[in-house]
């Protein structure tokens, strides 16, 4: 099981944000993206998640059972800045919707909705509408979305924004558990997540103006 990125470059507008980024992540490995705001962390994560088109390079997913030309995005969970949960629906409704939409990726099973809410430390309030929760609780519930269905790769964009220290610890524990089960984690973050053997990729941003066509 490995996620391979080769020679990635992407642009925003006409500016090349990064170029020539390559890495290979094996099962159980974690890659932390650091750098100041606007350095292209989010862009790189979105490229890997297949949400943005890269200028050059490719992202591929390899495993024993995977077809060779599979989109890497299918093996990924993506937790962006926004929580992707509907304020009008209850937490349980939100989570079970995503659980049935996502389904499970080969080689694992997701938790039930109740277990997932329990795992992020908010077991008792899954029946509340999502909009009633505080920002930190909403973030935790958004994280619970990663637990309800199995995906080997987690792509986390600032997962710990708006969280206090205890919640951060919960997240760190969950990420470690995922890694211990042979998962892969890519995260962009300002704060250290407390992961010891994580690899780090420092993004500097603005790799030059786009090789212009005009």
């Amino acid at each position, binding site marked *: 099981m490995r996620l391979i990125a080769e020679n990635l470059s992407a642009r925003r507008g006409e500016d090349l944000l990064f*170029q020539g980024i390559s890495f290979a992540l094996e099962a159980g490995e974690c*890659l932390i993206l650091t*750098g100041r705001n606007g350095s292209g962390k989010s862009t790189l994560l979105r490229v890997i998640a297949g949400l943005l088109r890269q200028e050059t390079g490719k992202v591929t997913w390899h495993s024993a059972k995977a077809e060779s030309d599979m989109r890497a995005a299918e093996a990924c969970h993506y937790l962006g800045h926004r929580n992707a949960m509907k304020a009008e629906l209850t937490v349980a409704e939100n989570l079970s919707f995503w659980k049935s939409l996502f389904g499970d990726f080969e080689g694992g099973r997701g938790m039930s909705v109740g277990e997932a809410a329990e795992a992020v430390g908010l077991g008792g309030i899954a029946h509340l509408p999502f909009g009633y929760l505080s920002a930190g609780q909403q973030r935790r519930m958004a994280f619970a979305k990663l637990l309800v269905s199995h995906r080997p790769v987690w792509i986390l964009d600032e997962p710990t924004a708006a969280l206090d220290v205890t919640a951060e610890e919960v997240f760190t524990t969950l990420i470690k558990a995922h890694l211990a089960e042979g998962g892969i984690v890519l995260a962009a973050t300002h704060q250290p997540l407390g992961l010891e053997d994580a690899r780090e990729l420092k993004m500097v941003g603005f790799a030059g*103006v786009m*090789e*212009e066509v005009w």
Partner: protein
Amino acid sequence: MTHTFYITTAYAVTAIVTLCLIFWVWLDGRARQKELAELEASGIRRRSAQTKPEPAPGGQA
């Protein structure tokens, strides 16, 4: 019977619209060329016409 009024109006309308179009395209082109000339004068040129500034490293894993 002749309909000189309609014919002249039709040709006039066509002429006006076409000429406006031609002038618009032409003036637009002039304005763009002027902007390019200004940029050129202030020392900014196409990258292919100058030595490449070395790109900042994109970051290594």
